[in-house]
């Protein structure tokens, strides 16, 4: 099983580890409530090194990645980042992907749900060697700094220039004689930064960030809390609803697809399903405070008939209730409706508009800092 370069630090901090598709992840470090509060009110540091990480020369990489991914890679402007997905030949999700256009290179990050060995094999079959693809997965760490005060940590470590980075952009910063590729991204709805660092500085960067995070009343986070944060912010989560549903059209991921592209993995299957019309759709659902039954796999009833299924869930500390995503027939997939959970006479749940929370980060104007 693949392990992170940062495992010694996380283990020393008391992290609990588990497997995620063949890679070891730090699931929890400081406790779920503390980690959640850190991101919403301060800042959290998370090890996302389990993602697959690649770089390639832009010249060859553009066509290579464009033939694989659903989004339009050649349209990524210099310094910007595309959020898209990788599908299999049946047009079902395999990976949630970022592609960054970093001058002469493309950086490709993939959070996959296939067994760990399958993605590199898929890339090889597609011509990775000819495209000059370099696998950074084992040689680099990927750290995520997320939260209301994440920008302040970045400013301390890399300078005020960081504050000018727009969402979904990449820049390279020096750190102890090496280069850190910094991507402004994040899926928590608070400020978020991903840092791709080579092994030579990975532990030193982790220590520096951990100290800066602690100064702001933040803490180390595990990957599990990000399931809650993503759902609350209504960011797609390939590890939750993505893994359970897998059809990007049902999940509402059409915005990640260039439907006019002539070629990408799964294109024909996706186009065929789209032409046939959407029959099911994902919708946000909220339980009454104190009700704990809104969990993944639960059935949702309307007029004594099962009509929906919960495909992702979390506890929202901000709203003090359980939230979920559920798949409904399109004719019932509207916000503002009441249903019953688990049985025709089960507890009431309501479909809601997403995202249901207002993150603190939206109140911060970085250009005035």
């Amino acid at each position: 099983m693949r392990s992170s370069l940062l495992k010694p630090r996380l283990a020393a901090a008391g992290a609990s580890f588990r497997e995620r598709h063949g890679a070891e992840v730090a699931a929890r470090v400081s406790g779920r409530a503390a980690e959640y509060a850190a991101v919403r009110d301060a800042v959290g540091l998370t090890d996302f090194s389990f993602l697959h990480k690649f770089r390639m020369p832009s010249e060859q990489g553009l066509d290579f990645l464009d033939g694989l991914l659903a989004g339009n890679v050649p349209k990524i402007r210099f310094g910007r980042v595309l959020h898209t997905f990788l599908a299999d030949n049946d047009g079902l999700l395999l990976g949630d992907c970022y592609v960054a256009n970093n001058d002469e290179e493309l950086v490709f990050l993939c959070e996959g749900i296939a067994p760990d060995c399958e993605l590199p094999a898929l890339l090889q079959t597609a011509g990775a060697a000819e495209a000059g693809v370099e696998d950074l997965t084992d040689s680099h760490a990927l750290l995520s700094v997320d939260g209301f005060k994440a920008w302040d940590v970045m400013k301390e470590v890399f300078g005020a220039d960081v504050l000018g980075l727009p969402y979904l952009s990449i820049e390279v910063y020096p750190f102890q004689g090496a280069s850190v590729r910094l991507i402004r991204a994040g899926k928590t709805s608070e400020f978020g930064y991903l840092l791709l660092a080579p092994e030579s500085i990975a532990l030193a960067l982790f220590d520096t960030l951990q100290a800066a995070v602690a100064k702001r009343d933040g803490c180390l986070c595990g990957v599990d809390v990000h399931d809650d944060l993503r759902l609350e912010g209504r960011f797609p989560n390939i590890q939750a609803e993505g893994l359970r549903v897998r059809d990007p059209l049902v999940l509402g991921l059409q915005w990640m697809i260039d439907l006019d592209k002539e070629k990408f993995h799964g294109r024909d299957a996706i186009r065929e399903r789209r032409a046939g019309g959407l029959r099911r759709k994902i919708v946000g659902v909220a339980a009454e405070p104190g009700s704990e039954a809104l969990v993944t796999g639960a059935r949702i009833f309307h007029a004594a008939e099962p009509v929906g299924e919960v495909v992702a869930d979390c506890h929202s500390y901000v709203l003090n209730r359980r939230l979920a995503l559920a798949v409904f027939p399109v004719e019932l997939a509207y916000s503002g409706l009441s249903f019953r959970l688990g049985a025709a006479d089960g507890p009431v749940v309501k479909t809601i508009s997403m995202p249901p929370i207002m993150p603190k980060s939206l109140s911060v104007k970085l250009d005035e800092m």
Partner: protein
Amino acid sequence: MPDEFQSTIERRARIIATFKKELILRLNLPYSAEDLHEDISLLGSGLGLDSLDALEIVLCIESCFKIKIPDQNIAILRSINTVVDHVLEQQALPGGAA
């Protein structure tokens, strides 16, 4: 289906259809109405629209539904569904545009 349940759907569906049609037209979006999930983020991630687009969205809402969007209230513009919620709230007020 109970009448109230069905009328909630119909009222919401009408507003969604109007808003999506105008949004696609005004911003020249490369999607059909069915491709736009109602929870998709309008600004930043998702559709990735910028501040100029946000202004266009505000004008679009105000002209389509004859309601005002309070200055600086970006919470309303977070998704199609949050826009529709605001429209429904405004229409439900005494004297609100139906």
